[in-house]
Structures are given as structure tokens and as C-alpha cells.
């Protein structure tokens, strides 16, 4: 028998949303994964191991098995009775499911928020203030010759990003910087070995930590692809870069503003900014001005540390300033595979990208007030629906405690800390593996999520589950009104 191989599969893990995965399927099980990163491979091979397949309802403090109809009815009752429910998650499901979620939020007069709220929410606020000069990843693959990763560690969070879209990819006008990296690595290793030998011979103390190299390497001044990483700690991505700038925690704003001054040829009369000597910054500014097409990818290092949206303001303004001198673009490194899609669908339907409050009967948007962490910390919500997300693991304790003390419904294919704390658990099918859909890559390019294997008979898609809850809510409300 011929074993079916699926090619051009999209990977439902991170915002890079790679679309070149090859899967071998045998007897309805994925047995081999090609082209995926470690995280993608783990998902395709292991997704079925820890799933739940039966709906659960909490009775006398214990989660017990229930029928799907019962779980849907219970969920609808909880939502219909609540006066200020939270509908949260959405970034790991399809755009189709998100659309139904928005309809449900409007119907029950709740607050709907997606995971942007604890990732690039501040970036969105800042982009609304300042604007963004952006592009698709394909443009960068072909043209970008200077790649910045600021407060972002793609090696860990978007493992194939560098390889597919930036420094190590080969485009029409730019070649991969991979060879340069290899020779640099060899040089560093040789230097280390020589140093160790010298230390042994001269009996020097080797316990002292190595110092940060304060000279910019020659490779930054030549033509061709270059990569610079700015971060508070030396990450794996930093080791792939031509140059690494270590900034003090919570000082990104100062560093960005200092670079803006240098790019406008203003003088800084201090010696260092955020732990980085000004001479280094002057040279970095020269490299930025000298590039043909630069791109600044920024991550949660900017949005989660002190200053939050103001850090992103500074980054967007820096890129705007740079465009007076050369061509420069900027893009947030979105985390989940469809968090961009969640923002996009929210905006189509309500006019706002996240933190949308329907309690007045019309959409209202005021992050800080209508965002889910704030609502939970103020203890205002009285019920919760979580779709394809795990807030109990990732929200600050106070917010998570206030989420689980209310009636909580979870729609998720996996067993998570949130589903263990829920009152109703409705296991769904894995979107992108067991059901189809649409998702948006981090550069706003929509791509199809494919169906590879059949889901268990008891698992519907998120879209169907939400549609059934919505129908049931309407039925209950019709009866009460």
C-alpha cells in the first residue's frame, strides 16, 4: 500500500506559520515530519498523546464525563446568565472560529479579548498612534541586507524565521549569510582554544567571565546580509548574529531614543546609554544609515518591560527617522500562528483589534480598562470562556485566580492547567491537523490550514462548537425574554 505524503502543509505553531512542511501519514497517524522545527515536529508527532476526547463537567468539585449536548447546554447557560463574561484566547484557532466567537460575545454582552493583550497589545496601541512602515516577509527574503532583532529571540520562539525569511535565507537579490556565520564560528572557536592553551601555559585565572567585544566586526561594514541582535541577555539568536548589543533591563527606550538622535546627526554628551558605549552606538547608526533595505523585528522585550507601548513608539519613530536617509521597515514578531488573524478578524467585525467590550450593546475599546488582565485583576468578570489558550499557566497569579473562581468554560483540544480548572471542558479537533481553516502569518498574509487526519468522532471543530453554543444561548435568551 502506498503511504500518503502531504506536502505544503502549514505549521500551526508560531507566527512564522511555515507552509512547506511534509507529513507522512500511516493509518491515520502522522509518522514522519519533514522541514519543521523542533516545536513543529513535536506538535505533529505528539499532539494526540495528551489530548482529551470527551466533554467534561464539574460536579461536586470533580470533573466528570458528560455528553456533548449536555456540555454545550451547560456552557450556554453559564454565558446567558452571566452579566459580564470574558471570552478569551482565539490566537490558536482559525479565523472562521474567531468570527463565531465575536458573534457570541455580542450576543452575551461580554468582553472578547485575544492573546495580543499579553503579547503585542502595546505594539498595536503604538501603531495606532504612530503608524508602521511594513511589508511582507517575501520582500525581506529577497531584499533585506540589514536585519535587526530587538528584544526577540527567534531561535527559540520562531525557530525557522532567520532561516526562511531573513539572514540565512537566499533571495533574488541577497544571498544567505550562513557561510559568514560558519567562518565566524570557526574563528571564535579557534580563538577560544588558543586562549585556553595560553591560559594553561601561563597559569592564568580562567574563571573570569569573558568580556563583551566592544569593537564592531568588519563583517558589518561589507556589502551583503548582516544581522544585529539587541537584547538584555545573550540568547541563541545573539550567537548567530554579526553583532550583539546587550542592553540593561528596562532601558530599551533610552537606547532607541539615543539611536534616533545619532541618526539625525545630533551629538550625545554622555559616555554610555543603557550600558552601551556611545562610540558603539555611533557606529551602529552608521551601519543603519548605510544599508540598502533594513528591517527591525521587535519582540516582547519591548512590550513587556518598562515603558511598554512607549518603547514601541520609540522603535517606530526610529524607523520613520531612518526612512529620511535610507529604506527601513519594521515588524512585530507575533507569537501564535493566528494571533495576527485574531487581530484582523476582530477589526473587520468590530473596528478594534483586541479588548473589545460589548456590555453596552455596541463595541467599546479601551485597553487598560476593557483588557482581560485589568478586568480580572479588578475582579469584575463573573464568567469565562477560554478558546484554544492557557491563561491559568500564563496570566499573573492574581488574574488567573480571579478567572478560575468564576464559572469557566474551556474549548481546547489539549489538557492544560486551564482545562483542569474549568467547570465545562469541550475538547475540540486540532485546527491545521484535523480540521481546515484560515490563519494569518505575522506579515498579514492569509494561508490555509489543512486537514491531514480525521479527528476522533467525539471532537468537533472550534467553529462548530461555538456555533452550537451560540444557537443554544439564543434559544435560552428567547425563552427568557
Amino acid at each position, binding site marked *: 500500500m502506498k503511504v500518503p505524503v502531504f506536502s505544503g502543509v502549514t505549521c500551526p*505553531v*508560531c507566527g512564522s506559520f511555515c507552509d512547506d512542511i511534509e507529513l507522512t501519514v500511516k493509518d491515520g497517524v502522522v509518522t514522519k515530519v519533514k522541514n519543521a522545527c*523542533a*516545536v513543529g515536529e*513535536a506538535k505533529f508527532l*505528539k*499532539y494526540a*498523546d*495528551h489530548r482529551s476526547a470527551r466533554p467534561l463537567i*464539574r460536579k461536586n*468539585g470533580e470533573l466528570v464525563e458528560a455528553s456533548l449536548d449536555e456540555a454545550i447546554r451547560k456552557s450556554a447557560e453559564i454565558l446567558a446568565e452571566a452579566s459580564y463574561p470574558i471570552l478569551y484566547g482565539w490566537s490558536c484557532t482559525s479565523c472562521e472560529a474567531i468570527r463565531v466567537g465575536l458573534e457570541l460575545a455580542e450576543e452575551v454582552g461580554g468582553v472578547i479579548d485575544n492573546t495580543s*493583550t*499579553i503579547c503585542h*497589545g*502595546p505594539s498595536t496601541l503604538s501603531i495606532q498612534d504612530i503608524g508602521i512602515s511594513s511589508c511582507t516577509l517575501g520582500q525581506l527574503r529577497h531584499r533585506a541586507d540589514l536585519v535587526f532583532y530587538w528584544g526577540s*529571540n527567534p531561535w*527559540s*520562539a520562531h*525557530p525557522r524565521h532567520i532561516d526562511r525569511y531573513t539572514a540565512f535565507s537566499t533571495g533574488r537579490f541577497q544571498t544567505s549569510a550562513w557561510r559568514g556565520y560558519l567562518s565566524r564560528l570557526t574563528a571564535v572557536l579557534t580563538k577560544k582554544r588558543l586562549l585556553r592553551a595560553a591560559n594553561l601555559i601561563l597559569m592564568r585565572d580562567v574563571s573570569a*567571565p569573558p568580556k563583551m567585544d566592544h569593537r564592531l566586526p568588519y563583517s558589518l561594514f561589507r556589502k551583503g546580509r548582516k544581522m544585529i541582535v539587541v537584547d*538584555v*541577555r*545573550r*540568547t*541563541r539568536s*545573539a*550567537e548567530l548574529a554579526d553583532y550583539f548589543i546587550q542592553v540593561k*533591563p*528596562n532601558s530599551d527606550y533610552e537606547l532607541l531614543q539615543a539611536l534616533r538622535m545619532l541618526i539625525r546627526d545630533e551629538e550625545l554628551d554622555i559616555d554610555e546609554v543603557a550600558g552601551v558605549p556611545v562610540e558603539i552606538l555611533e557606529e551602529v547608526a552608521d551601519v543603519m544609515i548605510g544599508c540598502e533595505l533594513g528591517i527591525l523585528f521587535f519582540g*516582547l522585550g519591548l*512590550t*513587556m*518591560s*518598562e515603558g*511598554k*507601548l512607549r518603547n514601541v513608539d520609540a522603535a517606530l519613530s526610529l524607523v520613520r527617522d531612518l526612512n529620511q536617509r535610507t529604506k527601513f521597515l519594521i515588524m512585530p514578531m507575533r*507569537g501564535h500562528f493566528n494571533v495576527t488573524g485574531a487581530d484582523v478578524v476582530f477589526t473587520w467585525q468590530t473596528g478594534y483589534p*483586541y479588548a473589545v467590550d460589548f456590555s453596552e450593546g455596541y463595541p467599546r475599546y479601551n*485597553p*487598560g480598562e476593557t*483588557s482581560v*488582565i485589568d478586568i480580572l*485583576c479588578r475582579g469584575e468578570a463573573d464568567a469565562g470562556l477560554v478558546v484554544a489558550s492557557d491563561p*491559568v*499557566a*500564563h*496570566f*499573573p*497569579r*492574581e*488574574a*488567573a*485566580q480571579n478567572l*478560575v*473562581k468564576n464559572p469557566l468554560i474551556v474549548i481546547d483540544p*489539549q*489538557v492544560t*492547567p486551564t482545562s*483542569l*480548572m474549568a467547570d465545562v471542558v469541550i475538547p475540540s479537533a486540532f485546527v491545521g491537523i484535523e480540521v481546515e481553516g484560515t490563519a494569518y502569518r505575522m506579515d498579514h498574509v492569509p494561508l490555509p490550514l489543512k486537514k491531514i487526519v480525521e479527528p476522533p468522532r467525539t471532537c468537533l471543530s472550534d467553529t462548530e462548537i461555538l456555533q452550537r453554543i451560540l444557537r443554544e444561548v439564543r434559544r435560552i435568551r428567547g425563552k427568557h425574554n
Partner: protein
Amino acid sequence: MEKVVKIGVGQSSKLKVSLLTGRTIDQGKGKEFGKLSEEYWRSVAICEMDPTDIKELGIRENDSVKITTDYGSAVVRAVKSERTPHPKVIFIPYGPWASLIVNPKTHGTGMPSLKGIPAEIEPAPRERPLSLPELLKKHYKKE
């Protein structure tokens, strides 16, 4: 037992540090193995530290450490950071353990402060990092 004695010898057993949280590739892989899996626990109930800080605390790698912030405390496993130096900066991957001690204040932006949090770290020879079910039971008990 040796460890406990070491700490007793007049040196300060607490360090003031800056706490960072973030993603790691092991955390990403661990979550795909399932949140209740051993892989997940091993990848997130940890604290990456500079070797000089480990030395200063008088502990060894894989010993338990207790991290306290204004918002709570958590016991995790100390791990030597592979990329140094970053003295007085500790790193915990995103997950239920980090969530116990991060700053929930959003300063009106909707975004809690999850990086660069002032914290104190000390050896916890008598405690061990909680397993995920234990942690959920202790901190998020559902009536």
C-alpha cells in the same frame, strides 16, 4: 546536608536580582508534549542563573531556589545559564511557575509587566519545585 552548613557560614544567602521571563525552545517543545508531561516540567520549573550567582548563593546546579517578588514567591530548580555573563539577572521561561511571581500591573495598557521585575533569590534546600497538579491545587484551588 553539607549545603545547609555552607549557607550558615556568615555569608548572605539572599541575592537581589532582576527577573526576566520569556520563551525557550525547550518550553515550546515541552508544551507540545503536553502541559502535564515531564518534559514540560523540566523545561519551565527552572531558573537560569549566572554561574557566579550560583556560587554566591552557595548552591549547586539543580538545587531548589526560592524566588520572591512583591507579588508572590515560587520554588524552582536552579540551572546554569548557557550564555553568560549576566550576573544578577535571572530567567524563568513562561509557565505556571513564572506566573506566580510576575507583576500583574498593566499601567493602563492592558499588558502586565513580565520582564525586568525586581526579585530576591535564596536557596531552598528543604523545599522542592511543585509539580503542576500540586501547584494548581495550592494556588488556584477550585471550590
